[in-house]
């Protein structure tokens, strides 16, 4: 029996669905493999829906909307035009053949065009064969063990820690003594000698704050909860110590109205890099060019101009693998994942009250800790962070299983940069994914 691909087609009511009807009325043949899903607008087709279609066994997904400029809702198809190519690059990076997803534009009168696209797409997918996307537990023993991202060893630069420690303590004492803030979130050294987040509520407690080569945590992740209004009293203002990467998180959260600018006093610290457990410069610092925070109320350390490190693009070697090897690489990583959600909890941008992938009703992903479910979670989370991830790499550092999860985020960040010339967190501007094509942020 020859292979008949299952194609899911999202068709918008106003144009492409009617276009499909037009084709039918004019007796123009379209393949029976196409299963239509009628949506009000192509902008409604959220990437989670497309990922869900592949998770549930679709061999190909087609999204057809109105031509740009002809959308019934003005700018709905702008969203599709921006979001779906971003998802496409993510899926391709994960090992899905790029030809299995297609976004195109069909108007209500273009019956022939609809039939042509539908036939073309079906034939392309037929040629690719059944999709290798879902894996059963028996496929656990995946062969390729040697596929690992290559790490460079950079030695740590010399850092003036004592001076910065004094500066942070002085600032914290000043803010707490004057009661300008109720709490200063900084770093301290714990009883075991490990550097970790610290919360100082009085000038005395400010004496435990430090700056050293191990200040890795992104303290901005504590802000949304600390600044959320829970009772009659507005929450007290908070000060937070940030590195240049962390400061970008402040901008992203401000752009998303997670808190107001006057609720936080940002103590920016110039940074020469942070150490990993082996004692060398962390890989995110190797790629980082900024030395001075992007937003701050006080600056500790002299402003330093941006520099460049020579560094290998970690994702490049992965891009060049054939699709099946890409899938195998990622399945190895997801197989090791225990779905503890440490990556999500460590991320300042992940602050949904109930994560889409942790819902009780399992509508986006099942509860099981299996390879398919874990992949759905990671791809979905990476997509949700596109245009928002600031590259602090805390997700990867938090992972108990050492999964190089930030490869996904890096890939999307470079896609967004390529397509929209945008990098998250440099200023208080929302991600280009949520704006219309002209760049303005439109409500609705």
């Amino acid at each position, binding site marked *: 029996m020859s292979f008949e691909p299952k194609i899911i087609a999202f068709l918008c009511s106003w144009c492409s669905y009617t276009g499909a009807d037009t084709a039918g009325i004019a007796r123009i043949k379209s393949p029976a493999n196409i299963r239509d899903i009628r949506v009000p607008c192509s902008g409604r087709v959220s990437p989670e829906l497309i990922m869900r279609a592949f998770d549930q066994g679709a061999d190909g997904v087609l999204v057809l909307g109105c031509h740009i400029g002809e959308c019934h809702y003005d700018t709905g198809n702008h969203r599709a035009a921006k979001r779906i190519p971003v998802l496409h690059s993510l899926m391709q990076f994960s090992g899905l053949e790029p030809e299995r997803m297609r976004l195109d534009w069909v108007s209500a009168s273009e019956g022939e065009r609809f039939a042509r696209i539908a036939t073309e797409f079906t034939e392309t997918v037929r040629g690719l064969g059944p999709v290798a996307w879902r894996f059963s537990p028996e496929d656990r023993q995946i062969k390729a*063990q040697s596929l690992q991202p290559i790490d460079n060893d950079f030695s740590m630069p010399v850092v003036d820690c004592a001076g910065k420690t004094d500066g942070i303590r002085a600032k914290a004492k000043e803010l707490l003594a004057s009661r300008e803030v109720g709490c200063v979130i900084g770093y301290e050294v714990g009883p075991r000698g490990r550097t970790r987040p610290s919360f100082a509520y009085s000038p005395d407690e400010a004496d435990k704050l430090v700056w050293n080569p191990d200040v890795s945590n992104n303290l901005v992740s504590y802000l949304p909860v600390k600044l959320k209004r829970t009772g009659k009293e507005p929450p007290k203002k908070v000060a937070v110590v940030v590195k240049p990467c962390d400061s970008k998180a402040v901008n992203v959260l401000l752009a998303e109205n997670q808190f107001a600018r006057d609720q936080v006093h940002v103590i920016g610290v110039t940074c020469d890099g942070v150490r990993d457990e082996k004692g060398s410069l962390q890989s995110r610092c190797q790629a980082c060019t900024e030395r001075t925070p992007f937003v701050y109320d006080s600056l500790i350390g002299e402003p330093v101009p941006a520099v460049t490190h020579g560094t290998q693009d970690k994702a490049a070697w992965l891009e060049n693998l054939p699709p099946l090897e890409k899938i195998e690489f990622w399945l190895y990583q997801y197989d090791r994942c*225990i779905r503890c959600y440490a990556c999500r909890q460590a991320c300042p941008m992940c602050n949904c009250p109930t994560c889409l992938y*942790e819902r009780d009703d399992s509508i986006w992903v099942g509860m099981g800790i299996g390879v398919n479910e874990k992949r759905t979670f990671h791809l979905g989370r990476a997509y949700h962070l596109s245009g928002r991830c600031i590259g602090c790499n805390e997700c990867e550092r938090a992972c108990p*299983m050492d999964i190089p999860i930030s490869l996904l985020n890096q890939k999307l960040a470079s896609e967004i940069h390529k397509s929209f010339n945008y990098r998250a967190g440099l200023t208080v501007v929302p991600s280009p994914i949520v704006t219309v094509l002209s760049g303005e942020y439109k409500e609705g």
Partner: protein
Amino acid sequence: MSKSNSETKYWLISQDELDTWLDGLAHAQALTLVAPREISGVVVYSPVENGGHISKVFTRPVLSVKGVFFPPTERLFTIHKTGQEIRLDESFPERETVVFGVRPCDARGVKLLDSLFLDTNPVDSFYLRRRENTTLIGMACDELGPTCFCTSVGGAPDNPQDMDIMLYKVKGKYLVETLTEKGRFLIPGGEWIETNINPKTALSAGQFQVPKKGKWPEHFNDTYWMKFSERCLSCRACAYVCPTCRCFAIRDERLSRGEFERIRCWDACAGENYRRVAGGHKPRAEKGDRLRNRFYCKFYYYPMEYGLGASSACTGCGRCIDVCPAGVDITEVFSDMEGSV
């Protein structure tokens, strides 16, 4: 899990003899050998197909051995729906398994889970079968790791008591001790040299003073817990790597039209929605409540509910300290509590 100490036997074997034995077990069709294996730079207990896969250098695998008996996801039964008819189908794990390289803290963890899943009614049918079909071959640790504290909770790096077979490194060779019938069954007949060298287990006192069970209740309402948990991210990594954390969730998932499976998976009390009841009320809404619950469960609730006597449900493996991204440290709780009035 019968232990007949009357006939504990010892053998002294070389590295080659050990490798041959393990390779044989790895290739045996009738069983699965699970051993520490390095996968992408991380050592985990994983099935191995030949002896060469076994990692020679490891302190302790990132995940404990509890996943062999209580896997992250377990299918309880499948549901077939046709019209109004429902049919339920069960299948149970039957595969023989041998786990090599088990550290004493992990074996202690299995014993502690036994008191929950086996020694308290009703008996868990999945855990029971996996436990009956599995033999534990332990490997004594050379020394305590930087975050280990098994000696503070009544354990030791070379404690054999929860194993079926125990290996000790002795002068470039391995001393093999069998402790149970199950263990003896695996020893290759005739080739190995018996010995009467006894392992000298020097049980030292631990560096941390773990507060006794009776001390915990009086500190329940201290504001300490809210302060201590401020840096906690509610991420659940600690519970998942812990050898004794056993909370799970049950849900039905769709397999295909008319076919469903009821599964149980690991869960942890760290999540905000873990205890949300119908109507939306959330007991333990504060992070401090949840972190406190985890410590109290480990040192007070679990021991009381499942009859552990004076011992806690903590094996001192130290994994929680290693994986916490925010620097929460259980041994700090001990010092703080012991130091307080």
